[in-house]
């Protein structure tokens, strides 16, 4: 664990040096990120032009959720997307061999080697939107709400990571499937709105089969004080479960891995 932390800091440093080469882009990136969050808020406005609630969530509650969505999306773009895209490359070109010979955990290495710093802008604006929406709601979360929110947010990120990792690991067998990331992104789009918006079988699908509900709806509900113990425990168990599966799946996949050249 301690070694992994050290390695992670090294990844951080290496990527930061790379990023600083292009620091003039910083301002443009901040603006691009702000532009998209404004577009997202305006989209919500269009719906609230016709209604005063989405699946039982008020306007500012939906904005809190949108902030959480943007934050998690920022985390995805910052830490995951680049790395996940490279896993398929590693496997297809056989460069995974080099990773395997390194004295660090291979799953850890392929997951976090490349960080895209400017995407932290999404997290920044996401948090800003959360604070704004909470202020407008006029009800600040209690310490317990906030702690629960942080735990559930972490669980959501673990869940996002695990599902994506499981998807990418299938490329050990189906090397030709490109755009696996794409399948994940499409699924993640559904978490832009409270899961209660979806009706009938779609909500059942997004809660019990594909755990979209635990990614944005559950953490946001904690922040607005609408959490309950059962949901929280289930969210943590689901995240833990998916993480263990991704871990085991990676190990199994490695056993069947026979480089590209041999």
């Amino acid at each position, binding site marked *: 664990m301690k070694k992994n932390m050290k390695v992670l800091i090294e990844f951080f440093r290496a990527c930061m040096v790379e990023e600083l080469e292009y620091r003039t882009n910083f301002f443009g990136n901040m603006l691009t990120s702000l*532009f*998209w969050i404004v577009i997202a808020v305006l*989209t919500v406005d269009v719906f609230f032009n*016709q209604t005063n609630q*989405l699946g039982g969530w008020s306007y500012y509650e939906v904005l809190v959720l949108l902030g959480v969505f943007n934050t998690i999306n920022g985390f995805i773009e910052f830490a995951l997307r680049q790395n996940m895209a490279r896993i398929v490359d590693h496997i297809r070109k056989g460069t995974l061999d080099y990773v395997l010979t390194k004295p660090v955990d291979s799953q850890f290495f392929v997951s976090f080697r490349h960080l895209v710093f400017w995407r932290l802008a999404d997290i920044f604006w996401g948090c800003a939107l959360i604070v704004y929406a909470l202020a407008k709601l006029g009800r600040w979360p209690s310490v317990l709400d906030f702690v629960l929110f942080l735990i559930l947010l972490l669980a959501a990120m673990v869940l996002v990571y695990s599902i994506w990792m499981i998807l990418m690991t299938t490329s050990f067998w189906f090397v030709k499937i490109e755009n696996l990331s794409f399948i994940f992104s499409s699924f993640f789009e559904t978490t*832009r709105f409270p899961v209660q918006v979806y009706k009938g079988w779609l909500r059942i699908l997004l809660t019990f089969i594909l755990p979209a509900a635990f990614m944005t709806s559950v953490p946001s509900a904690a922040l607005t004080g609408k959490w309950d113990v059962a949901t929280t425990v289930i969210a943590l168990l689901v995240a833990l479960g998916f993480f263990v599966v991704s871990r085991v799946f990676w190990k199994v996949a490695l056993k069947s891995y026979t480089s590209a050249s041999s």
Partner: protein
Amino acid sequence: MLNKYFALIRMKWVEMFEYRAESVIWILGALTQPLVTLAVWLGVSDGGEIQGFSPNHFILYFACLIFVERMTTAWDVWDLDREIRQGTFSFPLLRPLHPIHWGIAENIVYKVFFLSILLPIWIVAAFFIEPLRLALSPLEWVAFLIAVLFGLAIRFLMGWCVGLLGFWVSRVVAIYSVVEGISLFFSGRIAPLSIMPPTIQKIGEILPFSYILYFPVEILMGGVTLERLVTGMIGQVVWIGILYGVFHFLWKAGLKAYSAAGG
């Protein structure tokens, strides 16, 4: 000219077939945003009507939207950006045909491919989903066909105009994504324009975006008035004229800038 086009199309057809798996995924990926939006609208309407839009209307609307969106999509801005930035744009320039013809040929090939996938899906879906059964008059079908072609022309020219800015600036893809972001509201992608606030509708009638998607969708949904048909087509033709003029100007000016940079 026709012979040359056949040759171009055959070439692009072979090229596309190499990447058909990606093309299918490309179609699937374009489904999420409209389907999520549809689901939210169905949730909002909750079985009732929103300004004359029943749940069935919403289903038909977004199905039409997905279809027209795919049939009018344009991707030249990414190719132009890459080729101009890396300098490989010199190769298409050396060929005897104007590079835009390669773009047009590629477009024809992909649109035929999209159609061959989307049409059977629609027909099968119509068996199960009642609102998808269309009952248009022959005149409406012809009008729809023309409106989609015009919409495609507007979007295609818009892509080329933004792409050609690459002769002067390096972030045309960012510019294009801003245009796309703004177009979300005026093209009818978030909601039918008729249920948008009046100001948005007014601005939407002036901007080109509603002529790309919303207008053809309106025709495909049926029951469009003759007056609307005429004004819509006039709007489309005007925008094609404007964009063609801009394209022509940018091309002339851009080539000068490009050769200056290269020489």
